[in-house]
Each structure stands twice: as C-alpha cells, then as structure tokens.
C-alpha cells in the first residue's frame, strides 16, 4: 500500500456503481431508487475525474460538471413526478404503480 493508483479509484467507482445498481433493482421505494441513481451518476463522475487526473487533461472534469448539472435536473423532475404520483395513488412503492400495466 505505497500509493493510491488509478485502479483504486476505478474499483471504488465500480463498487459504488454496483451499490447503486442493486439499489435500483432491489428497492421498491421510488425515493430510494432515485438516490441510487444519484449514487451511480456519482460513481461515473469519480471515474471521469480519476481519468482526467491520469491523463492530465481537464476535459474530464468539465464532463463531470455537466453530469452534475444533469443530475440536478433529473432530481428536480424525478422528485416532482414522485410527488405527483403520490398525490394520485397515495404510495411511493413502484410495485403498486400499475395503472399502465392493465
């Protein structure tokens, strides 16, 4: 364990992404699923920044910046959708939202 290498960051990012993926796939609470999506976006951000440092080019950081802006937009719209759905159906459980499945 002399120094932190690029692969440390990549593996950590992959683990975070996996946790987010499990969260989206396993949890049925819509709010927690949104949080898991945020976690996956952050894992992608960590990869972008790590590679940006590795190559000595700042474009990766600009990309991560755009991902952040996108995540903010996604969170705003997604949470508004959850609110609207909750008003109609009185639930945030995605298994009970089956109006389109009939």
């Amino acid at each position, binding site marked *: 364990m002399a120094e932190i290498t690029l692969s440390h960051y990549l593996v*950590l990012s992959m683990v975070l992404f*996996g946790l987010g993926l499990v969260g989206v796939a396993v949890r049925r*609470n819509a709010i927690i699923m949104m949080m898991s999506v945020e976690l996956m976006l952050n894992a992608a951000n960590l990869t972008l920044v790590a590679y940006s440092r590795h190559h000595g080019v700042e474009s990766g950081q600009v990309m991560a910046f*755009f991902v952040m802006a996108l995540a903010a937009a996604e969170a*705003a719209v997604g949470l508004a959708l959850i609110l609207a759905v909750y008003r109609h159906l009185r639930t945030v459980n995605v298994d009970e939202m089956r109006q389109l499945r009939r």
Partner: protein
Amino acid sequence: MSAAAVVLPPFGRNPVHAALALVSTLFFLACLFVMLSATFLAAMQILVYAGAIMVLFIFVVMLLNLRKADLGDARITGMKVVTALAVLLLVGKVAKVAWTGAGAATSVSLRSGHEEFGAIGPVGDLLFRQFLLPFEMTSVLLLVAVIGAVVVARRRFGRGVE
C-alpha cells in the same frame, strides 16, 4: 485508501437514514476529488449535491410524511439475492479489468498537467471556450427541468382524482 473505507452504502430502510448516508457518501466523494486535485469540482460537489439535491430529497421525504407501513417490507426474497449476486459478478469482472488493465498501476498523484490543475481558472477557461455550447445548453436544460418540475408537481392536476 482510508477515505474509501468510509464511503457508506445508502441502504437504510427509512428514507431519511438513506438520505443521510448518501450525504456522507457524497461528502467523502468530494474529499476524493480534492485528492485528485479537482478542487473546483469538489466545491461544486458539496454545493450542488450535498447542498441542493439532498435538501430536495429530504424535503420530498418530509412532504410525503410516510408511515411505517408505506416503507415496504424488508424481506429478503430469492429475486433480490439473485439480483445482488448478478450485480456482484458484474462488479467483480469490471473491477478485475480495472485492476489489471493497461496503465492501471500508475500513481495518479504523480501525473499532473500543470501547477494549478483542476483549479477554477483552467476548468472555467475550458468551460467557456471549448465547451461553451454544451454549457449554454445545460442552462436551457435546467430551465426546462425547473418549469417541468413546477408543472408536474402543481396541485391542480391531482384534484380530480381525490
């Protein structure tokens, strides 16, 4: 690597616990950004994620005011185990490639572009020159998202059903 160990998985059954765990995860990610000398991005991470987005999440959790029964059951079903194992397999495969791939063993702390790599100056320069069009499109996207969120969450839509 000590910072990596503190990253918590946001998997509380209670959404508030999950949100708090996610805040700490985002904070430690900001620390990792500082270690990668992306100081501007670390500041943005704290401001945008730990600040704005998480406040939004907490607000929605409090607005919905879910009861215990709404949180869903915490039973471990076979489907959940299979899903977790599949994701674990995927993560393991990709992590192995990341661990043994070309250039993976190089220390990131040694490779640097210039003195103030990742400071607000160079990043902003890149943002307003090379990536000016995407930057402006981002502002339009955020505007659309704000208007869309207001329209979707407006109370008038839900009145007919209740």
